[in-house]
């Protein structure tokens, strides 16, 4: 008993999904955040960086965007451009959350 724990360790865990709103400045610095402090700060930073990158790439391609929305199967990230920075909304798309927003299941 416990041999698998000795080999693989006991740290198996599921990463929680971010929920809340973050505003970032044009350098990618977090200005305000309502995301739980339990969610890793480097990941919030990574989201901010990638969102700004998306806006930057679009500007580079002569198609400046005012809003971009990434839809994953369990998370939706919507970002609005704010003078070089952005406001980012993160909504997990879990079963309980969906039931409040979509048609009855």
């Amino acid at each position: 008993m416990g041999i698998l724990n000795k080999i693989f360790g006991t740290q198996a865990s599921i990463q929680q999904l971010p929920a809340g709103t973050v505003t970032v400045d044009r350098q990618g610095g977090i200005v305000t955040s309502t995301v739980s402090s339990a969610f890793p700060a480097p990941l919030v930073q990574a989201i901010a960086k990638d969102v700004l990158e998306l806006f930057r790439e679009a500007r580079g391609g002569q198609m400046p965007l005012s809003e971009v929305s990434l839809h994953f199967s369990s998370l939706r990230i919507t970002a609005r451009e704010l003078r070089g920075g952005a406001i980012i909304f993160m909504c997990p798309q879990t079963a309980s959350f969906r039931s409040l927003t979509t048609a009855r299941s």
Partner: protein
Amino acid sequence: MDAQHKILVLDDDVDWLALCRDQFAELSSHPEILTANNAKRALALLETEKIRLLISDLRMPRIDGLQVLAIVRRRFPAVRTVVLSGLEDEEYRSRAYALGVDLFWLKAEMQRNSKLFGECVESLLGQSDQEGDTGFRGIQSKSLLDIIQMECLTRTSTVLRISRGPLVAKLWIQEGELLDAECEGASGEAAFHRLLAWKTGAFENLPAEPNRGRTIQKPVNALLLESAQTLDETAHPSTEPDSVEANLHRKTMWKLAQLTREGAEFVVAVPLSVGVPEALGAQNVDALAQWTLRATEIARSLGERLEAGPLLHVASQSLERQTVLLLRGERAFLVGWPAEADDNILDKSRKLVALWES
């Protein structure tokens, strides 16, 4: 045989059960409506009552709808089954039909089109009556050709609704005669030929519409033969330069027609590995293709780091337009829409991409 049929509605939402009870009570055959808010109670009712039709939700705690349907199919094969779900996912539709359910409806659709749903339910109850519990159900892995021939040979009157992802086609059959067809924006014979090119999909029988106007005059067998010839020519295209060029031109014109009909501004199809982007209606193809690739790369990488599941789509908006980025196979598609386009552009984009690939 009971004079009054019994319908059992299974759903964990009691408000929804009350709504169903009211709605089904208005059916012309006045069936008795029984309800259950969990699978255990539903199975107990099926044991004790003579249920004609089970209408089940899919997403429920403990035992979900698909499990219940599998049990019902095994233990109560005579019971007709209908799935009434809020899950707008083609996979669930396919899985439900694979389990042999008679009908799959979305709750939102049922509320919007309650009359048609009522007719479908009546039709299922009526079928049980006329056939006296005879006949087989649960057709699987049959080609569309087989299904159409079967419906026509048995001189059935029905509307066949065939879906392939976001694409939906319909065939109106009256006493074995093909009256009309609708597919990919076409109607009549053209729609029928297009439909027969579909390789996969799901089908369901809707109540017949005898008043549907007749647009197809040819016999079904002649149409099937023509389609088989066309498909054969498509599978083995002529290699003469003129013919290849004419085919390409025809394809481009057809795609452009679909684009215009849906109201989109452009479509850019970008191979995710190597290859040249394909585009229609776009001016700055290279810039759009580059952003499509970069956005796909960024979004996928972010999704992996966040463990947020597969990327479904990326929507974006600017002052001039809206775009939807979709992935299909080894290609990313960027569909552009006017800024004032309605909320339905995601569905329309999916449809355009599916048409593009077809």
